[in-house]
């Protein structure tokens, strides 16, 4: 799934829920950095972004994984998550 696909799916609804896998495999491959970044971000987004911890997203070899409004993003980085969220916001602005 490309970033554009995820953006399309996420765009409906005004609240973004991000599930971060904090299982041991994803944790080892960098979910602590994602959590740090997302908690900051959710403050910036006026708490319209909700961050939840989940224990496994069943893609342990492609960690760290997150789900954005139900869409799985494997090998997640702070940069890709930010890009997705910015595009979602931008789409909303354009209507």
């Amino acid at each position, binding site marked *: 799934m490309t970033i554009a696909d995820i953006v399309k799916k996420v765009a409906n609804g005004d609240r973004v829920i991000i599930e971060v896998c*904090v*299982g*041991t*495999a994803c*944790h*080892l*491959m*960098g*979910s*602590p*950095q994602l*959590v*740090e970044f997302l908690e900051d971000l959710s403050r910036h987004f006026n708490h319209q972004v909700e961050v939840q*911890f989940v*224990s*496994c997203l069943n893609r*342990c070899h492609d960690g760290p994984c997150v789900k954005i409004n139900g869409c799985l993003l494997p090998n997640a980085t702070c940069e890709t998550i930010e890009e997705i969220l910015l595009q979602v916001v931008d789409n909303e602005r354009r209507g």
Partner: protein
Amino acid sequence: MMSSDVAKIRRRVLTEVAQLAFAGKLQQEINSLPRRLIDAGFTTKRCCQYHEKAVLKDLITLAIGVSPETVDPEATLAEILTDSQSLQPAGDHLVSILKSACDACPIDRIVVTDACRNCAAHSCVNACPKDAIEIVNNRAFVNRERCVECGLCVKSCHFGAIIELERPCTRACAVSAIGPDEEGANVIDHGKCVECGACISACPFGAIAVRSDLLKVINMLKAKQTQVVGFIAPSYVGQFGPLVEWAALEAGLKKLGFSAVVPVAAGADIIIELEALELVQKDGFLMNSCCPAFKNLVQRYFPEIASHISHTASPMIEIVKNIRKQSAHQTLKCIFIGPCVAKKGEALREGKSIVDAVLTFEELAVILVAAGINLAEIEVPSIGTTVRPSTAARKFCVAGGVKQAITERYQQMTGQQLKTAAAAGLKECRKLLTLLAAGKIEADFVEGMGCEAGCIGGPGTLVDAKRAHSVLSRLIK
């Protein structure tokens, strides 16, 4: 904690090695592992496949517990593995700079950049006390023979055109143990190194790493007749993610095959008692013995005050001795698991024949992942450990924690206050020790921590010190 891309590369390699070891296929497949990783699209971000393969080979060598500096460069990984099983690892060469991965980054400290405009002011020329700056080809030029690297020209340039560079590992090393070899790549002088591990986290090329006990531990866990006990350092709090507390960690280790899991904070409780007693009986000041990097620093660089280090062993050694005394089991294997690189050295020396291996939290997570154990989903038994270390002992892992614990206990014993001094991070420790040795500081108890923020800032941690600290303060009041 370190730059996450570099950490990811190392962790992936460790995990692959651990998986092969659990499957019993390491000997057959180790030679083809670099090829397989590259074919699967894994990259160590080097210029070409040959370089990638060389870096992977060195990383795998460290993962199986061998320092690449000590092997024949022509030997295959399978040969290195075979040899390693018959040899006892030497006490030194714990931390290695991988020649293949070291970029031999620029060594000249003062560099004039393209931004130099050969301006009329020539403030760099005027600022230089050694007349080391000349104008050559319409641009400032540093004469290396005269330059003393004072940095005054850097400060003086209005364009910021002169920069000061230093290799990150060299800068991170508080004891100047890292310097270039004849080819310009950095090497560690093991005679000077105190094994703090600061350089490991500092290198942006991931070229510095520590020899791992990963394989040793996996082999112990696979040998059914041995009993393996895990000793968990107090800094474990928050290290395995927001959903994992002690009970899950304990359950996970038991699932891995550990027969018992012991909090090292219980050893810290023994230390509080013994060090406070030492203070009551002793003339002159006392320094903590729990941090091996700090202890190495004192012994090597301030031998005149080394007798002031507490004669009490570290919490690791005390608790391991204790458990060994209680156990009748002949083939007990004791594994320390913590944030620390220097503990690996301590285990090889003071802990010889009682501490069998030392893992970092990172290495433990690697073993868990390789064994398919997810601590966030593990079933936790309703009855956990019965050992309950004190709050004061659990805070040993935070800078200032040891000092606080000892002061409080001393006050309970004598009703008197202690004068204390403390430093965290080896550079700060070095400053404090210089003043102490010169008699410029008066203190009864001195706490030295090799890592900034204390053990929670150690090179073998999985989360950053700030987060670990906030989890700790929430859990331990």
